[in-house]
């Protein structure tokens, strides 16, 4: 029997991981529902965002300004990528085109990272050091702070999408591209906004992950896959669904390795996804 301390840390780690997946899933779901593309290079945007924060903090810039700068830089990169690569071309299959272009981008960005940043793992300075006492178990503070940042970012995104004109226009464009175009909403502008927000969230997730975990040129692929699985679990376009899906995945990834060992834990996401799809093919909170 493992001690209470270990369980508590596993749960907190799981929740922190889950929120990272939620952040990744929000960007991916915005791009998937507004642009109809599968952006497989999202994990590389996450990695680039994290490395940008690393190099900024090395230049004596505080970690919080560095995160903001990195989010802004990735948002600009997202707009450029949308304009140059992901703008739909007439007469092409959007799904295949986007998958191939984003995989090509993955190859370019990850090899650029290997060349530019090196293969050694690096780590960011912690957001905050020390731990506090929760029911007699030590919980590191930086995890809680990372969870807090993610929750704040998600609430901001939610209010943006529900309360502002641009956000409502994005939702409308996701629901019905042609209909909203007739109402004067330019789908290309909405795609740009989706890419900008998605890449900024990926940079935030990467920076938070970089302060909890480690930086590596290939660090992006697992969060990207888990972000996609979060979408499938929760249902496309549903923010509460993504939170539920992310929590399920994060807790599974946090607790199961402690309980059953890593081999059994690595099968769990696939099993959960299959179970959910058998009973609810649209995801837990998904709808047509």
């Amino acid at each position, binding site marked *: 029997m493992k001690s209470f301390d270990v369980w508590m840390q596993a749960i907190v780690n799981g929740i922190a991981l889950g929120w990272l997946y939620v952040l990744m899933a929000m960007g991916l779901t915005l791009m*998937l529902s507004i642009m109809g593309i*599968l952006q*497989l290079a999202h994990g590389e945007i996450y990695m680039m965002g994290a490395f940008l924060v690393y190099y900024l903090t090395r230049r004596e810039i505080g970690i919080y300004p560095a995160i903001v700068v990195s989010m802004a830089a990735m948002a600009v990169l997202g707009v450029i990528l949308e304009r140059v690569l992901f703008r739909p071309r007439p007469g092409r299959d959007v799904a295949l085109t986007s998958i191939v272009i984003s995989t090509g981008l993955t190859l370019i960005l990850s*090899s*650029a990272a290997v060349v530019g940043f090196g293969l050694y793992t690096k780590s960011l300075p912690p957001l905050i050091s020390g731990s506090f006492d929760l029911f007699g178990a030590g919980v590191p503070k930086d995890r809680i702070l990372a969870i807090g940042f993610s929750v704040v970012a998600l609430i901001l995104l939610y209010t943006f999408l529900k309360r502002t004109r641009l956000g409502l226009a994005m939702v409308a464009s996701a629901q019905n591209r042609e209909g909203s175009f007739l109402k004067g909403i330019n789908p290309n502008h909405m795609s740009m906004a989706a890419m900008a927000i998605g890449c900024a969230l990926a940079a935030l997730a990467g920076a938070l992950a970089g302060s909890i975990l480690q930086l590596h040129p290939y660090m992006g*692929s697992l969060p990207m896959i888990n972000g*996609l*699985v979060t979408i499938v679990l929760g249902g496309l376009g549903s923010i509460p669904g993504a939170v539920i899906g992310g929590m399920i995945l994060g807790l599974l990834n946090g607790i199961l390795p402690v309980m059953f060992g890593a081999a059994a834990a690595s099968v769990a996401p*696939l099993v959960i*996804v299959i179970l959910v799809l058998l009973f609810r093919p649209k995801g837990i909170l998904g709808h047509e």
Partner: protein
Amino acid sequence: MSETKRGRTVAKAAAVVVLVVVVFLMPNILSGNKYWLTILTLLAINVLLVSSLRSVILINEISLGHVGFALIGAYAQALLMMKGGLTFWPSLILSGLLAAAVASLLGHPFLKVRGIYFSILTLLTAETFRLVVYYWTGLTGGSLGLVGVPSPEPVTLFGRTVEFNTVNTYYYLAVGVVVIALLILYHFERAYINFQWRAIRDDSMLAGALGINVVGFKMVNFTISAFMAGISGGLFAAFQHNLSPDTTSRFGVTMSIYLLVYMVVGGQTRFIGPLIGTAVLTLVAEATRSIAEYQPMVTGSIAILVMIFLPMGLAGIPAQIQTWLRKRRLRSAEAPVGGGTER
């Protein structure tokens, strides 16, 4: 018209004959150069894997999980030969069948969802298989890898014993298996079942309304394609003699990406596409070996450029040139003097 058609058939047959002769004599042409024969053998194995990936395109789904089925095939082949005590050929068939069985189990929940969801699920599947192999150290050796997969046992042919423990002979074995597998895949593409697949590809809702068992036929397709991926994995295992489940290994996400790029650069609408794409990009990779760390960048740029400028891939270049020439001829007929350059 029939004259040109017959001419084209003759040209095609001649090209096939030349290709067969060149492939057969390749060890002699290269005078047993081990390096290039290794590359060619891997090329043949990759062509099979990419072709199996392409056969899922026939039902308008994009699989990112064929690396996972290749991994099942490779580890099944290795473990059946090393621990199961089986010989090469039965375990090759069994490893293909195992991959097919896993695919048919996963097919039911996966093929109910469509489009991008299917790609996501297959990506998750491949990564799950890799992680299971990575962590199940007792059976697979984990991150240290599985070392010492035996070569195929020697065969006595016309009173001569052929050993398969050198690259030179394994090349013939691999190419032979790959050609047979490709012929089977080609047969399916020309067989009656392809009508159902095409109906599903063009409009699965309409196909279902016409009484076609959409999920059933999709599952048949997915299972066949996973079988071929498993066979390619088995060939790989017996060729390389050691397997590793690392992120950067053959069974990581990056390889899924490479396979997709091979397919699309070659042209996913043609059967010959995977062969062309894999061959060209393998040659590009060899040409850029001196700048190895930039090599993924080159491949990625080629993929993006092909996707933007050549939607039908390299195999579609002749057709594109034809339409371009026809357009030019029409235009020059319309504007005889001085107006040829404007659009």
